[in-house]
């Protein structure tokens, strides 16, 4: 039953249950918001979105106010505009507003609102915030001074991740956002996914930067600097340079990385193929020998930390495979070091990841070999863009180049790792071949594709009906794990990614991308899979060569030493 309402003197239709903001958005009327998050229950905390409710004469928050029959709304009267401007001015009154020195300079919602509302003089000068920064986490830096208490980070951590590492502390003007007992993030239950950074409107949350170390290595003539980039990077980086979302800039990125000065450029999708070789062997081994099932993927370091804290009972289920980042790191400092006749300690290994948790993963104690770290520095997609600008590379005027050999070729299955369901699809393609000796007739497994938070399907492999589940967003993982705790036993293999939609929507990606942009990145991965000739990991010629010349066979002695790891319970306040 439609309702008739009036907005800015014009009649409009509204549906019961909608908020005023829903109707405004649909009709192309923009009202500024801060605490509002699409698809979340409104909180109405910041009051940026106020509109005039003429029937009552009050200002109401459009994000949380439901439509009513006969309601008359004005969205941009001088009263409304003044009220919004006042809110911005009050937010600025205790804000450090040292914008020129801020990591979010030029990409800050508070800055944008100040511009939009023509805030040009300091009318209200208050006492500036004076909290201490939290630099304790290997992944995420918090600067509570810049926090405007919109609560978006708190909500994403609780509602999407099911972690709740942070919440409001204290009351009134002393309020800040922090962990339990206001300790450092490093000792909290934080899984380092970085989704809080993605929703933060200001510079209160950012990744722990590794650019200084990387620049130092690049200018050190005694170091061979090697870089690898994750499957999701090539379809996400474009947005940082104003190109169409989903544009695949793989070749341009290779060229840019060489121009910056990296000696060798490798693709983590190669080691995604390697992961598939190991993980599918592990799956087959567990099925054949009565090992712990369901097997759960271990590519996502945020999920792995989550399991070590919240799902300790599932640790035996988590694959012992290191993630592709760490596998490639390990191979670079052994097989490849040998190949280029360089000592592993003279190699500086950098990775580009769509992820902040990868920074944490790289410094895990077990991610070393004979005391040498697998990966030395990890930069996010954002940091790579910064580095490209810093070194004056013009992405619009360079020619695409190929990756280096022998760790640069990938199958499109490895490339699919960038999106939720990709690891599953790649693993099933190879497991099917290993078990039946034949390739799948149809490589595309549509049931595990797409951005949906929870996907399930069954696949007949020989005599075995394999049940698989793919979840992204750790809250979804929690629900699935609870089902298994309660006795569900028809699932053999689970892919878990912490970020909703997988790495293409990771915590290290371009800030400000909407769902449409993320979908474009995903479609771009699927297009690559359609186009590529090598569609399965076990046909990657360089992976085959690596096994022949160095590793032996999947799950073999060398693999165990370099490519597998262990997990243990973490004692943190939950």
């Amino acid at each position, binding site marked *: 039953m439609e309702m008739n309402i009036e907005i800015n003197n014009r009649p409009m239709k509204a549906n019961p249950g909608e908020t005023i903001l829903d109707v405004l958005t649909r009709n192309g009327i923009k009202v500024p918001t801060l605490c509002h998050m699409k698809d979340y229950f409104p909180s109405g905390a910041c009051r940026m979105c106020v509109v005039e409710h003429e029937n009552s004469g009050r200002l109401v928050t459009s994000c949380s106010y439901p439509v009513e029959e006969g309601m008359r709304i004005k969205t941009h009267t001088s009263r409304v505009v003044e009220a919004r401007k006042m809110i911005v001015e009050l937010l600025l009154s205790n804000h450090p507003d040292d914008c020129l020195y801020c990591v979010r300079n030029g990409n800050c919602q508070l800055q944008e609102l100040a511009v939009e509302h023509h805030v040009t003089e300091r009318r209200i000068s208050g006492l500036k915030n004076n909290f201490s920064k939290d630099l304790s986490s290997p992944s995420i830096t918090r600067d509570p001074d810049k926090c405007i208490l919109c609560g978006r980070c708190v909500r994403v951590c609780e509602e999407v991740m099911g972690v*709740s*590492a942070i919440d*409001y*502390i204290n009351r009134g003007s002393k309020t800040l956002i922090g962990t*339990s*007992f206001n300790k450092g993030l490093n000792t909290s*239950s934080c899984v380092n996914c970085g989704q809080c950074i993605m929703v933060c409107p200001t510079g209160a949350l950012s990744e722990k930067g590794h650019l200084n170390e990387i620049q130092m290595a690049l200018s050190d003539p005694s170091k061979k600097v090697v870089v690898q980039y994750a499957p999701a990077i090539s379809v996400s980086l474009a947005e940082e340079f104003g190109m169409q979302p989903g544009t695949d800039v793989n070749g341009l990125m290779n060229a840019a990385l060489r121009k910056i000065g990296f000696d060798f450029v490798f693709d983590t999708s190669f080691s995604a193929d390697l992961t598939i070789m190991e993980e599918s062997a592990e799956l087959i081994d567990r099925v054949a020998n009565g090992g712990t099932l369901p097997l759960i993927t271990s590519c996502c370091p945020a999920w792995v930390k989550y399991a070590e804290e919240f799902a300790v009972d599932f640790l035996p289920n988590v694959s012992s495979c290191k993630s592709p980042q760490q596998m490639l790191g390990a191979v670079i400092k052994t097989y490849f070091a040998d190949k280029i006749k360089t000592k592993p300690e003279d190699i500086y290994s950098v990775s580009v990841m769509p992820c902040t948790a990868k920074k944490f993963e790289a410094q895990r104690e077990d991610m070393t070999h004979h005391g040498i770290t697998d990966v030395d520095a990890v930069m996010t997609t954002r940091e790579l863009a910064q580095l490209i600008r810093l070194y004056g590379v013009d992405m619009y005027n360079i020619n695409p180049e190929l990756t280096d050999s022998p760790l640069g070729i990938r199958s499109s299955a490895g490339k699919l790792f960038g999106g939720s369901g990709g690891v599953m699809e790649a693993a099933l393609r190879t497991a099917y071949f290993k078990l039946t000796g034949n390739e799948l007739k149809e490589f595309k497994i549509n049931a595990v594709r797409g951005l949906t938070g929870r996907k399930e399907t069954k696949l007949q492999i020989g005599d075995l009906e394999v049940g698989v589940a793919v979840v992204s967003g750790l809250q979804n993982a929690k629900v699935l794990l609870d089902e298994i705790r309660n006795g569900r036993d028809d699932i053999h293999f689970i892919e878990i990614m912490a970020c909703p939609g997988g790495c293409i929507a990771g915590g290290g990606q371009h800030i400000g991308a909407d769902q449409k942009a993320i979908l474009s990145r995903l479609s771009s991965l699927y297009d690559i899979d359609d186009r590529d000739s090598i569609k399965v990991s076990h046909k990657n010629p360089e992976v085959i060569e690596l096994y022949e010349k160095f590793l032996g066979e999947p799950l073999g002695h060398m693999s165990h030493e370099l490519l597998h790891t262990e997990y243990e319970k973490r004692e943190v*306040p939950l």
Partner: protein
Amino acid sequence: MKHGIAEILDARGGAKRDSLIPILQEIQESEGFLSQEAVSEVGSRLGIPTSKIYGVATFYNQFRFEPKGKYHIQVCRGTACHVLGSATVLDKLEKILKAKAGQTTRDGLFSIEVVACIGACGLAPVVNINGNFYAKVTEQSLTEIIENLKNKEV
């Protein structure tokens, strides 16, 4: 200590998140403060993340997160005391003891708590130490009071 917390929680078997504040009050009553262990225990029993419990507890002045000192000093910050200068009294106290409101000195001797009106407005500004009222406190008299207590301990 854990024993006490477990008992309190056992007595409220089946309690849900709406019992959080009364449970925290009982624990503070019995233990003197809310320890990290206590908060974790409450969290796992009620299914509430510790960050949320800490958030709720820090919202209210009544909860403390450090054990009380041997001398627990309540500084009244009610209206009458405020008008007669309790802000300076509190400021002075924090300086003398090198501890903030809600904290305990490192030697465990003194702890400071800010309270709203304690109903002794005629004596404003007033400070209460272990149940004894000190009336019309000034910066100087406060220094003497603390010195006297310290001397007792030597």
